[in-house]
């Protein structure tokens, strides 16, 4: 990656870092600030209501999940616990000023998080997402919940979400998806011009920058990356990172993979990434389009049922399309559904002779914890490299 591309990335990082101050300023002017949790909450609706969205997706530190233990079973996902843990520790500059938190409820961990938000009197709206996604009843349910959310946002902001406004926000976010897709596809090159550590962060920054600031910079970045200069050696082993989520700030594992001589060229992560391959249609019934894309078209998350055979097919396709040498499964402690899925994926990878490494984290990245983690990742990358050569 060239210097200019690095500068653009750093500029976006800087904008994202100052998001809390900027939200505070806007709130002072009367703009509503809406937090949201999960990939099933359409950002399009939030923008169309005139609210400023704020994705709650932090991770990577052990103290915030632990702060929740007096109120919740400790065998729950550290990621979900972290979303309120920072607030409980007084470390969250944004959550206290949110006018509403839209919390997706697709599994037990998310729903218990919503319980906690309500228990602590944070303004919460739950977006129910039925996991039995192939039934018309469930599709209708999600669609109705979106309609309910639309009304809730209109009441909060005092703005009617007209078709015009919704179309505009959808088109803007589609542009963002488009440019991220183009950057993503550049990673098919060997060596890729951008690795997973940077691409994941880029996704994260995209949630915390205003679209008008973001889009031109992403265009610039794409142009730079397209020139083909790569920070990785020609024979770098190509890896897929799969699992639930790399939270904002939880960068130890992707960075470690790339510091160990590998490169992440594709991801299958259910949360924290823009599902950029799917655009929302901007003609016809716009609300129905949102429902269709968000619920039915995109890669089903692990919690959906049935999902795992389809997800295995998707991984197989990624392996082919991105010429992947090995898969690293990144899972957070006590996420029981991902734990089951990891066994299935290990079996599938064994069948197609692709090396597979399962990593599990409770966000404990002390020196003592990172040592063994480093050894495992380095050994895996080395074995993949030898296999490749």
């Amino acid at each position, binding site marked *: 990656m060239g210097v200019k591309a690095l500068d653009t990335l750093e500029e976006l990082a800087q904008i994202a870092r100052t998001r809390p101050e900027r939200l505070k300023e806007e709130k002072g002017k009367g703009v509503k600030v809406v937090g949201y949790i999960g990939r099933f909450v359409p950002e399009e609706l939030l923008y169309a209501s005139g609210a400023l969205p704020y994705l709650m997706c932090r991770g990577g530190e052990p103290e915030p999940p632990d702060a929740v233990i007096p109120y919740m079973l400790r065998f729950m996902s550290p990621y979900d616990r972290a979303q309120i843990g920072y607030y409980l520790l007084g470390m969250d500059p944004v959550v206290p000023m949110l006018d509403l938190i839209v919390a997706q409820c697709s599994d037990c961990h998310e*729903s218990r998080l919503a*319980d906690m938000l309500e*228990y602590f009197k944070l303004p919460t709206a739950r977006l*129910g997402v*039925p996991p039995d996604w192939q039934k018309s009843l469930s599709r209708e*349910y999600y669609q109705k919940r979106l309609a309910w959310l639309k009304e809730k946002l209109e009441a909060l902001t005092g703005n009617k979400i007209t078709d015009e406004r919704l179309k505009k926000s959808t088109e803007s976010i589609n542009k963002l998806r488009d440019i991220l897709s183009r950057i993503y596809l550049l990673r098919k090159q060997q060596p890729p011009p951008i690795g997973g550590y940077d691409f994941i962060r880029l996704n994260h920054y995209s949630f915390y920058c205003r679209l008008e600031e973001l889009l031109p910079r992403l265009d610039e970045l794409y142009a730079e990356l397209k020139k083909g200069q790569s920070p990785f050696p020609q024979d770098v082993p190509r890896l897929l990172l799969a699992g639930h989520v790399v939270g904002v700030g939880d960068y130890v594992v992707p960075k470690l993979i790339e510091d160990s001589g590998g490169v992440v060229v594709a991801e299958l992560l259910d949360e924290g990434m823009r599902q950029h391959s799917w655009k929302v249609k901007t003609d016809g019934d716009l609300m129905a389009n949102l429902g269709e894309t968000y619920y039915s078209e995109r890669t089903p998350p692990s919690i959906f*049922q049935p999902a795992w055979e389809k997800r295995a097919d998707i991984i197989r396709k990624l392996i082919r399309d991105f010429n992947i040498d090995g898969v690293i499964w990144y899972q957070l402690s006590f996420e029981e559904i991902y*734990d*089951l899925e990891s*066994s299935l994926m290990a079996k599938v990878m064994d069948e197609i002779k692709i090396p597979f490494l399962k990593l599990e984290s409770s966000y404990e990245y002390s020196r003592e914890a990172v040592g063994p983690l480093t050894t495992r990742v380095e050994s895996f990358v080395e074995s993949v490299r030898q296999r490749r050569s």
Partner: protein
Amino acid sequence: MARDIYVEFLRLTGFEEEEIAEYLPQWRKASEKLGLTEEDVRFATEERLPAYFAVELEGIRKLLGCFVKETIDLTQASEYKERGVKIVYGILPAVLHFYYALKLTAPEKVFVSFPDIFLTMVLNGFFHKLAPYLEEAEKAGIPYGCRHCALNKARYAARRLNIIPSPDVNWIWGFICDEAPKTDEFIRIYHDPEWKTYITRLPHDQSLGTVEDEVAERVEYLANQMKDGFESAQREIGIKVPEGKISEVISMWQGYAAKLSELALLMSADPQPLGAISGRLFWEGLFTPFNTGMENLEEALDITIREVKQRVANKEGILPPGAPKLLIYSVHPTVPWIAKMFEENGVGIPLSEFFIMSKKQLQPPSFEDPYMAAAEGWLRTSGMVNPGYQAEQICEKLETHKFDGMVFGLMDFDRWLGSSHRLLTRMVEEKTGLPVFYIEGDNWDDRDYSPEALRTRIESICEIMKIRKA
């Protein structure tokens, strides 16, 4: 004549002499299939069952016998299947009406079971021998370290070990946890492509305190989900349940529930007339279908009510009069020493909150439509709803049965039912002012939480309660 421990076991579990001749060969075969040795049967007969169950009562012996008969029957499921009987499974918790409606429509053509419940209750509760099943699952894709549920592991292991056949349909309900239905998806992909499932789910998206059975849209959605699942199950097995059958089952179920409420009131008498573990298995009848039918269970319940009434009249108790009495969220005979440890320390835990009815649950349904009635009933149940509404119902039960406090926990494997307990502990204590405790543990699988590990916690709770009551 040499002792036959298998005969003694059947006698202890309430089998009549004339039944023993019929059941003995079946029981030998079943125990062998389950991996139970003669020594295991001896342990159950001489130590485990007498230690934890009031086997001096005929009703309790017959209750144990119902579980033995059902377990024997379960081990014959493959033979049923070979004879063309349709195999229908489900998972806990689910509304039983639909499973019984299938069974009662075609008793000879349908086999219904929630297999993991019986295996877990009987193998661990009676023999303390569930571990080989759990280990079988753990070595084959359901790792030990993630605190997966013992029931799900048991179901998977039972299939792996050929204890049970593939179902014609496994109608699975993910109304509570995610892991149970996803385990069935796992079994199908990882081990048994014939493990055919139909899934019915309901998102947990109601705000704290919402009275969910009064949210018309939610009741209707749930009713439609139940109807959809039931129609699918009927299609899969080619049996059409006539109209009216569900209502017939509902009244059967409500009759049984009313008797259980009578037993609950008796068990909360002072002094406590019966140990918690002894009575607890009766409540499985509300949540688990018996392929062998409800009649035996109901007969055992009638006898037990009569016997316990006599104890109450005689002021006979397992604890001294005035002993502190705690409501426990849920105690299971699978790990019977937990309840016993409370009782040995002078504190009663006669009833499990999850299983006893609130006043509203005992009211007739507001709907004639059986699906709407079933959905409404489900959403009146404290364990099935948001913690705010659940806490309200728990407070009512504490008042109804005059408890001195409550214990939550022992559900650390359950990301839904167990995950709210710390929050509920606070909510119930705030509302009632009663002492409310939390114990981390697992009431299905006691490999991680031994008596030694929990003793200090239980003893300290008991001491606090005795000091408060003094």
